[in-house]
């Protein structure tokens, strides 16, 4: 095992009956990294996390978390790994603080340390004032934040967050992402976030992996992923009057593959980065007004869609 990699997954497969939830997954995550696991619902993200925790048994393949095998030594793994499930639940008729005390006792945190630890964590997630209210009265965002405190109680080396921002309003999301970023950047914890919401993940992750139908179709930094599909970029332009568009001139430019119309947009397939300035100059020369110009394939949305289409196509065909 590579000493740098805290999580090492090899040829991992999980089948539920005839359904393959995770299909031959290979992934390694290094210590202190914030890794985003992206994919639509039902892509196998949660299943993968459950297997990493030892809560579910893999059909085949091997996993190592900090050198431990979660299937064989689940207790040791659970001691160093914190997991926040996607629909995190607390005991509604207990207060937030009582819920944390229960977790603390389950983690055998010495009693004399419990009070201070819980107080500081509640302050950290901004629940100090609500700590003695019953969880039943908590809002969704407060529950999520209590979930973060709950995960951090055991001072984990690795944190798994399953859809942490699901159902949160933008403000709540921003607060939560701040807390997560702090975990990764300041405290050096390894964080694995699963989500189907790209933009949030894009903002805080060092690397992302794209998961489609149980397969990891791509992994790397955002710019790496963008580069991988860079050769097939396209430019979309909104300009008027549309009749003035010099299609002959543009078509004759080197690097242009084709020109097409999508709704009211002109889409030019080709090497976007070099072409864009030239085309703009041409359009300005034609006295056209440009309202919108975008090089496709450079942000996560495009990466995401492209990989989803590919993943979907390859497993369908």
């Amino acid at each position, binding site marked *: 095992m590579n000493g740098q990699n805290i999580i090492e997954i090899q040829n991992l497969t999980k089948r539920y009956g005839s359904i393959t939830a995770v299909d031959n997954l290979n992934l390694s995550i290094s210590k202190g990294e914030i890794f985003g696991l992206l994919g639509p619902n039902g892509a196998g993200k949660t299943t993968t996390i459950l297997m990493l925790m030892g809560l*579910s048994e893999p059909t085949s393949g091997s996993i190592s978390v900090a050198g431990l095998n979660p299937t064989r030594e689940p207790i040791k793994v*659970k001691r160093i790994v914190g997991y926040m*499930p996607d629909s995190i*639940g607390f*005991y509604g008729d207990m207060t937030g603080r009582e819920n944390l005390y229960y*977790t603390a006792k389950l983690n055998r945190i010495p009693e004399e340390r419990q009070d201070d630890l819980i107080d500081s964590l509640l302050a950290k997630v901004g629940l100090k004032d609500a700590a003695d209210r019953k969880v039943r009265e908590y809002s969704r965002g407060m529950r999520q934040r209590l979930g973060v405190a709950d995960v951090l109680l055991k001072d984990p080396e690795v944190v798994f967050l399953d859809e942490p921002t699901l159902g949160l309003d933008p403000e709540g999301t921003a607060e939560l992402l701040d807390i997560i970023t702090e975990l990764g950047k300041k405290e050096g914890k390894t964080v694995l976030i699963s989500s189907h919401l790209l933009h949030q993940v894009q903002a805080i992750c060092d690397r992302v992996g794209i998961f489609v139908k149980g397969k990891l179709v791509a992994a790397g930094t955002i710019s790496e992923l963008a580069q991988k599909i860079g050769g097939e970029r396209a430019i979309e332009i909104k300009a008027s009057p549309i009749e003035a568009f010099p299609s002959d001139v543009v078509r004759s430019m080197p690097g242009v593959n084709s020109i097409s119309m999508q709704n009211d947009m002109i889409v030019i397939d080709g090497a976007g980065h070099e072409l864009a300035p030239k085309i703009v100059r041409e359009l300005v020369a034609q006295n056209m007004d440009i309202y919108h110009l975008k090089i496709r394939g450079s942000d996560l949305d495009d990466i995401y869609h492209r990989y989803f289409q590919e993943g979907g196509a390859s497993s369908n065909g």
Partner: protein
Amino acid sequence: MDKLKDFLLKKFKSSSSEENSGGVKVVFIKELADQLSSIRCLILFALIALTGIVSFYSAASNIGAVSEDSGANFILIRLFATSGTSLPSFTWFLSLLGPLVGLSMGFDAINAEQNSGTLTRLLAQPIYRDDVINGKFLARLFILALMTFALGGFVAGMGIILTGVAPEGEEIVRLLIYLLLSIVYMAFWLALSMLFSVIFRQTATSALSGIALWLFLTIFLPIFAGMVADTLYPITDKADALTQLNNIRIAQGISRLSPSTLYSEAAITILSPSVRTLGPVLMEQAYGAIPGFLPLGQSLLLIWPHLTGLIAGTVIIFGITYTLFIRQEIRA
């Protein structure tokens, strides 16, 4: 020798710290607090306590008739199994309502946590899965025991005051055995309802299946047993002794499949030492028998199959529950 002792001690210590995550205790205490503060639990306890006390009181007011029939020995414990002028006996109420207590405690033990999402979080903590199910079962069992002894002690105390008779040593032993029997009986239903809570995702489904089985076993099975027996060995005017005997045997055999029949029979036997047999007796067998009380050992011998049956049923059902829970996928 000392070295060996030392070695064993060390071995024991290390294995206990490695193997035992201590989760049972934490889950146990939490579940105990939950149950004790739950309104559901209090209501059922109040129901049982009220009906029990009232029926016992009415039996005790009837004490004259009771002692006239069969003497004044064991009067205290016999009051438990005696019906008053207008009310059935204490044991009858407990055999009917005891299952409800067990069912109400266990029917949402697992699936409620599954639905609220706390189970995944609980299992993500460094404890074994066994700890969760064992802690939950033990906490509920503890409360059953607490309830039963509290109620039994209270009612017995009330009996001493009402009758003015001090209990004999054997009476106390018999009373303790009866209370233990009641705990086992309710534990059976507890295990059953926990099994349903593992099998069914919806708490309403598991509660209803528990209640359905309770109704079937306590009310319909005895009726059903009589019907089967009458069909196989019809009792007519001309029926001979053998047919009548077979009829009773079949009916008894079938109704003994129900834990409440087992419990009622065992309770009567242990509480009324004058009960000598639970099956049919021929005139020839009874001829020449001297009426009197069975010694404790003999009464115990008579209910031994009942007791082992109930305990075995409880253990088997809990075993199934345990296995299903351990093997269950967290998300199906």
